């Protein structure tokens, strides 16, 4: 990279708050997307993802906090054709053909887009004469992606681009995305499919009820749920010290330990060793071993009651 001053990030959100009446949809959110970075914006329905993206795209204004896109006000960056967006369901005219739709949006750009190249990228050449209203969900999403790519944007924003698509169409869409976005542009996409986030993003940002819950690389998020859960019953267990003493040989592998009466729950990176030890050296019975999926991590992260949970 040249040693000039670092360019403004693709998206910089700080302290964003947005309410609808009494409902606080987004609550003091901070989020930065660097140039060329692919960030997944993850959260359950109603977490505030779309509300945040609406502000990033200049559709609505923040109640408090600041949002800049590529160093500019959001509406300005959009007006200059520097941002492309794939919106949620709807948003196209069913009576136009695919070709007409592309031509209309292309003609409204500042510079003349290379429509044919975008058609090739998004594999739409076989559909051009079809009316948009007659296209399948997956095809419509590819049209939306094509529209978003027309201005050659520096930032691409996608709001749950695969909602309502079947598994094959989803895989197909991301395959197209991968080809179409190999040029290293910044991408911010909202989703509630964790696997999509893990497969496609450099970084995952998880929000719940308008607040940031986790922010890190895919590996870091996975590490939040690292290890395997081992559960057992230990009749007559006196407490956690006794358990820790028994497990001293594998102490280095333990991530969390909790004891509820006779019920023991551990998270460990060496489940086999812990299990062997528990079954041979202690009176523990009813042993259970379960792997923690990324979904479990996600569920755990968003399940915490923000009002009730004291600082750990």
């Amino acid at each position: 990279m040249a040693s000039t001053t670092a360019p403004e990030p693709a998206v910089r959100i700080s302290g964003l708050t947005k309410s609808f009446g009494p409902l606080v949809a987004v609550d003091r959110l901070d989020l930065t997307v660097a140039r060329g970075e692919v960030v997944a914006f993850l959260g359950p329905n109603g977490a505030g993802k779309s509300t945040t993206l609406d502000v990033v795209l200049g559709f609505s204004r923040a109640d408090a906090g600041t949002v800049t896109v590529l160093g500019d006000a959001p509406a300005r960056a959009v007006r200059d054709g520097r941002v492309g967006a794939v919106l949620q369901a709807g948003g196209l005219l069913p009576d136009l053909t695919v070709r007409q739709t592309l031509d209309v949006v292309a003609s409204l750009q500042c510079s003349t887009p290379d429509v044919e190249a975008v058609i090739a990228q998004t594999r739409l050449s076989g559909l051009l004469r079809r009316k948009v209203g007659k296209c399948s969900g997956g095809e419509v999403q590819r049209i939306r992606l094509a529209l978003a790519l027309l201005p050659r944007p520096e930032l691409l924003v996608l709001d749950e681009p695969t909602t309502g698509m079947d598994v094959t169409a989803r895989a197909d869409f991301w395959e197209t995305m991968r080809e179409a976005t190999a040029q290293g542009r910044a991408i911010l996409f909202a989703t509630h499919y964790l696997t999509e986030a893990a497969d496609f993003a450099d970084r995952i940002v998880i929000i719940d009820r308008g607040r940031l819950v986790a922010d890190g690389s895919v590996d870091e998020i996975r590490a939040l749920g690292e290890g395997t859960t081992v559960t057992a019953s230990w009749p007559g267990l006196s407490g956690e010290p006794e358990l820790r003493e028994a497990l001293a040989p594998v102490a280095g592998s333990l991530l969390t330990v909790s004891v509820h009466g006779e019920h023991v729950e551990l998270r460990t990176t060496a489940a086999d060793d812990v299990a062997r030890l528990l079954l041979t050296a202690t009176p523990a019975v009813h042993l259970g071993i379960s792997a923690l999926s990324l979904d479990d991590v996600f569920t755990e992260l968003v399940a915490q009651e923000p009002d009730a949970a004291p600082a750990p």
Partner: protein
Amino acid sequence: MTTLTTTSGRPRLGTYTRIDALTTLKRADMIVFTLLLPLGMYLFWGAMQDYSGLDVGRGNIAASTMVNMAVFSVAVAATCTAAGAAVELAGGWGRQMALTPAGTRGYVLVKLLCAVIVSAAPVTIIFIAGLFTGAEMDAFWVWAASYLLALAPTALLFGCYGLAVGLWFPAQGAVGIAGTSIALFGFLGNLFMPLDGTLFALGRFTPIYGAGALATRPIQGDTVALMSDVVDEALWVPLTNMIAWTLLFALVGLAARRRTTRRR
């Protein structure tokens, strides 16, 4: 206009206007309500009546009726074209438009241009029908002036009206409300039959009156025909009506701007 420093060129509205106008003209409901209905009304009241040949200034009654029906057809066509924006916006197209450099402003301009172009179809057909069924005017300039006055100001006024209704009312209702209201405005605006007394006094303040009175002015001059009488009217009366209503509808439409990018 804002300056575009980082990009070259500007959005071009021609492509979208052409595609949208053609799509709208091919819609069956537009053909029936904006072409066939006003044409039929002209042929019935204008061409086929005994009084059609009577002289009313620089033309005959058939010509005057022809112009009134042309104004009505423009009002319907422009309103329905622009109100169609409501349906498109309800589908989220406003958000897609707002994402382009042309923006919401470009979209609204396209809809207004489209309203004028689509409206040209019924006016042209009604004028051609008039030419062959006894409408007479004294000179070519009277034909040309009547044609332009029936088309341009009326299309602009009712394009704004259609947008205002389209943006403020729910999509399913908007087109119906817009279309039906034009029939009422047409009646109150002295288009269908000469009014009298209180109705005329009231009608002068309704949106279509100015457009109709202006368009028949090349033929009738200052004279306005009432049911049982004729009155003289200064130019400023229809002109003020026209400008005031256009401004009002434009402002009501502008006030709805934020509604175009709402999630629905």
